[in-house]
């Protein structure tokens, strides 16, 4: 549970198990299956860490990231989905999630 991310991201550890998944379709599914409390907590804590985390991960090509870095990246990628739910859809998210599954993601260029 702890120490799954590079040093300096301990506050994000509680979100790893649920949100650090590979693939656009899986991340979208996590968004759809999550509760407002889960999304709001993730958003509140992650948003200020995004610039620092991206800068750190950009130092290497994606193919060379180690497991902890890769997990941090997956977390950030899930965070983009959560951002849409929290900032844009707000209380319309539950209804939107129902329709969203009809829009099948059929190709994702990278995991």
């Amino acid at each position, binding site marked *: 549970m702890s120490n799954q991310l590079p040093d300096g991201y301990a506050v994000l550890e509680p979100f790893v198990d649920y949100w650090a998944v590979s693939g656009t379709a899986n991340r979208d599914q996590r968004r759809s299956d999550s509760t407002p409390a889960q999304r709001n907590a993730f958003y509140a804590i992650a948003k200020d860490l995004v610039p620092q985390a991206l800068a750190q991960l950009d130092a290497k090509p994606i193919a060379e990231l180690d497991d902890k870095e890769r997990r941090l990246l997956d977390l950030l990628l899930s965070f983009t989905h959560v951002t849409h739910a929290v900032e844009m859809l707000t209380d319309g998210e539950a209804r939107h999630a129902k329709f969203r599954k009809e*829009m099948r993601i059929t190709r994702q260029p990278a995991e």
Partner: protein
Amino acid sequence: MNEHTPIYTAPEEQVAWMGTDPIPAKAYYDPEWFELERRAIFMRTWLEVGHVCELPEPGTWIRRELEFAQASILIVRGKDGQIRAFYNACTHRGTQLVEEESGKGTNFLCPYHFWNFGDDGRLVAAPDFNRFALTKEDCKIPKVSVDTCAGLIFVNLDPAPKQTLREFLGDFADRLETLPVARATTFHEYCYDIDANWKITYDNFQENYHLRHVHGRTGIATVHADNLYGYPTGYTFHGKHRTQTIWSNPEPQIKPMQGYNFGLAAKIGMEQGIIGGPEDRTYFAVFPSLFIIGTPIQHFSHKVYPISATRSRGVFRVYWIGEGDTATKRYAREYALAGIRDIHTEDVNIINRAQKGLLSGAIKNVHFMSMEGLCRHLYQQVVAEVEAYRNESQPAGERA
């Protein structure tokens, strides 16, 4: 006292020439009318079905299903680098050659009796072939006309197309070539099936009247007191095709991470030289059922495939240039993709209901206001194609 000078004026005069007549609702659900559209348009028009990045090297191929024609098509990049298309059907007794969506290889082996076809559809080998009263040349798979523009692959099911793809696209051809899609190397794709006529489906995406109601949350950045519906700044018409020019809201309401994330995407776009092009705000509507948007971030195509009078299938693709090989690129793409898919999800949901209300036949006409002029243009083009087809297929003496 200060008079407020509106920052937006609707381009009413650009659509006035099409008139204001009500539109017969039957055109949006009647199977007989659909059958005419199918024959007059879809069976003999250039249709976009893919992108050259799906055929990255000689010996790669993709399969495409065109339900309106009950046709499965193989599009192949041959050993010589040429792109060819032919039916996914064996000339022995018709068996489909492949079930996979895409693959690699320069031969297609029919699983039934092992006829083996080359990358140009020619029969190259067949077991015990001398028992047939045939030559191998007789057994070539019927070809499908195929050509590309801006990296997009188009096919035409007419055995002898009346126009080349370039002639069909007219001045759109050169303009599309300036878009990022022409340089794209990869894409995200999302698809939907819908119980709706192809024109009802397509029309939703060529009017902004619904924007405020259907995209009240997701489309907030496009709403301004002077342009509550985010109407375009202009419309143009090019034969059967049309464009709208997307309005730029000078005072958008932007959420914190939304602003940050689009900033990242804009920076990447600048580095790739895809921002600030001549078509940045152009939304191309290519007859009969393709859209391609010029905006370089969330650069998407959308194809509506008709299946029946009241059933369609849609394919969205968001195109990218180069691999997402850094964390920031991957992050910016994921955000852009999820956002545009959210908006399109809302569209598909409302289109279902638009179709249901028409099916009883109680609604005799539908109405397009001026800012739905592109929908009117599509209807008028469809009618013109159907009329032309009827005139061609009637004996000369019976023509009106």
